[in-house]
């Protein structure tokens, strides 16, 4: 049960609010590998509060092992709060840079695709175009499958970030919990 990894499950996005202390990323990542869970993507950055960082982690597991993951994460001293985003209840985005072969006739076709997807062209050479794309993961996948025909030279993605919809933030819930 607790060792189920990858495949077979569903994608879950969780936000983990952590103290910005040395080693905290290692603690979180290490917990996943020690307990036999795979991370699909992980993004870390500062938050609106100094001293707190926010990790967005995408995991491919069933509901039961997910519960075990969040319980184990909660035991890390530097973890303040964990939110699991129900599908549709959060805005989820990813940033991608992709360098595509585009010379001759291909150049115009790639630029046309860029326009349709409303993505920016951020670098141009004689033989390549580099596109900067932001969006939901499925939009980026759709874009990539079209660009694949031209030849992708290099690809870099940030991993997903997410914010819950609605007027409350993760930290307000933390403060409310602290005042209980």
């Amino acid at each position: 049960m607790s060792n189920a990894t990858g495949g077979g499950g569903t994608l879950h996005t969780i936000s983990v609010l952590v103290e910005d202390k040395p080693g905290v990323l290692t603690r979180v990542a290490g917990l996943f590998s020690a307990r036999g869970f795979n991370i699909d993507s992980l993004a870390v950055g500062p938050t609106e509060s100094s001293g707190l960082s926010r990790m967005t982690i995408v995991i491919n597991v069933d509901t039961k092992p997910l519960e075990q993951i969040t319980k184990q994460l909660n035991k890390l001293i530097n973890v303040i709060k964990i939110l699991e985003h129900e599908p549709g209840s959060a805005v989820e985005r990813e940033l991608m840079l992709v360098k595509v072969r585009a010379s001759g006739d291909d150049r115009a076709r790639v630029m046309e695709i860029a326009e349709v997807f409303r993505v920016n062209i951020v670098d141009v050479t004689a033989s390549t175009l580099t596109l900067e794309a932001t969006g939901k993961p499925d939009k980026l996948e759709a874009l990539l499958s079209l660009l694949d025909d031209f030849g992708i030279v290099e690809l870099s993605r940030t991993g997903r970030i997410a914010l819950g919809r609605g007027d409350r933030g993760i930290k307000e819930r933390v403060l409310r919990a602290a005042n209980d």
Partner: protein
Amino acid sequence: MKVTGALALLRALEHEGVEVIFGIPGGASMPIYDPLVDGSSIRHILCRHEQGAGHAAEGYAWATGRVGVCMATSGPGGTNLVTPIADAKMDSVPIVAITGQVPTPVVGNDAFQEADITGITMPITKHNFLVKDPALIAETVREAFHIASTGRPGPVLIDLPKDVLLAETTWSWPERINLPGYKPTTKGNQRQVVEAVKLIMAAERPVLYVGGGVIKADAHAELAKLATVGRLPVVTTLMARGAFPDSNELCLGMPGMHGNYTAVTAIQKSDVLVALGTRFDDRVTGKLAAFAPYAKVIHVDIDPAEIGKNRAVEVPIVGDCKDVIAKLAAELDARQHEAGGVPDRSAWLGQLTDWQRRFPYRYDQQPDGPLKPQYCVERLRALADDDTIVVAGVGQHQMYASQYWRFEHPRHWINSGGLGTMGFAVPAAMGAKVGQPGKRVLAIDGDGCFQMTAQELATSTTEKIPFITAILNNGYLGMVRQWQELFFAERYSGVYLDPDVPDYVKLAEAYGAVGFRADDPGEVDAVIEKAFSVEDRSVVIDFRVDPREMVFPMVPAGASNDDIILDPEGASPTSDPSEAPIL
């Protein structure tokens, strides 16, 4: 007041009430040792190996309930602490490990005796700290002790670079602890308690499945109340021996791979299983899918991650066992009063008594036959008082000790359960004796285990910490030998140690201890009496026991608890339909 980081550390440890540190100094930790010369309320016990220091801190913590402290230098000093730290994590033992580190300017440069000990111990500590500012030492110590001793206890490591220890800072003791991400739930939810009691009231075959958390929570009195009020039978896991007195008629003893038939089968046949401070370890459950198949489970634990981890639960209760068990007992008492008394479960209790009568632990000691290890444990118990603290390593001797010792009090049984650390007994016994100097401490050890940490007998002699080690010497790594006999067609490989090497009596004497030997059953009592009469030095008894003896009952790894094997002939009571238990 201006102090060095090292002095701030000592002051902070004194503030935490630390009375003893088990340690070994080295280059990076030397600044800590200098102020000890000027006097401190803390006694430093110089061990002979850092692993010994770590297990001694564990033994101290097991025996007292207080936080044990061990200390080592950077690099190999810290890595030698890895095994005791992992052991403390698995068995939820509150210890604080302090390590020196190379100076901050050279951290990451592969400096002499550098190891990334916070990185290494991240997965085996409850939490760890690398302190880079001497002004943070006091609050780090305070947080470390708080984390180690509260919630589910565990090991915490503090790594201190040498320049931080030497730098000057201003001493102040923090008024508050600031750990926003650490708030263990200790109070059990009363609605869940009511749900649990309803299940218990309706149960026909209830069992209290008691784990080490009950001892950690000092909840033995509350457990006794709950068991007595509800007339509920109790099994005590390897980690919980002594949480409930073996002399109580409701005590069924140890379940699990080498548990007795009644304890194992009571759980298997139970309809309501009340799991208290226990984690459904594979050594208890056997094949998980076949474990307690008829039982609705109530699970009380202070660690929410344990609840539902291995077994689905009908009534989860997160909280400290002391609080929750007291609430369960009070609620059960009240409801039973309303209902006109304890439900009649005489058939169940009668069945348990019948099993106990028919399937006790057994062995065969012939007066002129080879000495049996079980006989040694039984005679040690018969000649010792109830207040003796018993410590074991890992293997056959550990199982014999748990099976044949009769425990009457909590914190009188210390062993390595989860990690199964050979070599645990000698240093842990030493630590226990430091924590409980008024009590007799008896390590029951194997010859394989003993050789892994015997060097701490030197510490015992020089620091005047007398305890007894009874080696059940069969000349083998006995438990591995047993598995090779049973599961590898008697193809013995890499298990023969030789009972004569070393000569344990001479080795004891070389360390300044007293050595005795018993080869035959007739010599056992006299040797034990002689050993018990020595009070100023440690004693080693070399019991030359039958290498062919095996631990039974046994549930083979991965098998169902229903397939318990009672003796070497493979007899299983359920193989005879006329003996089939109820259900």
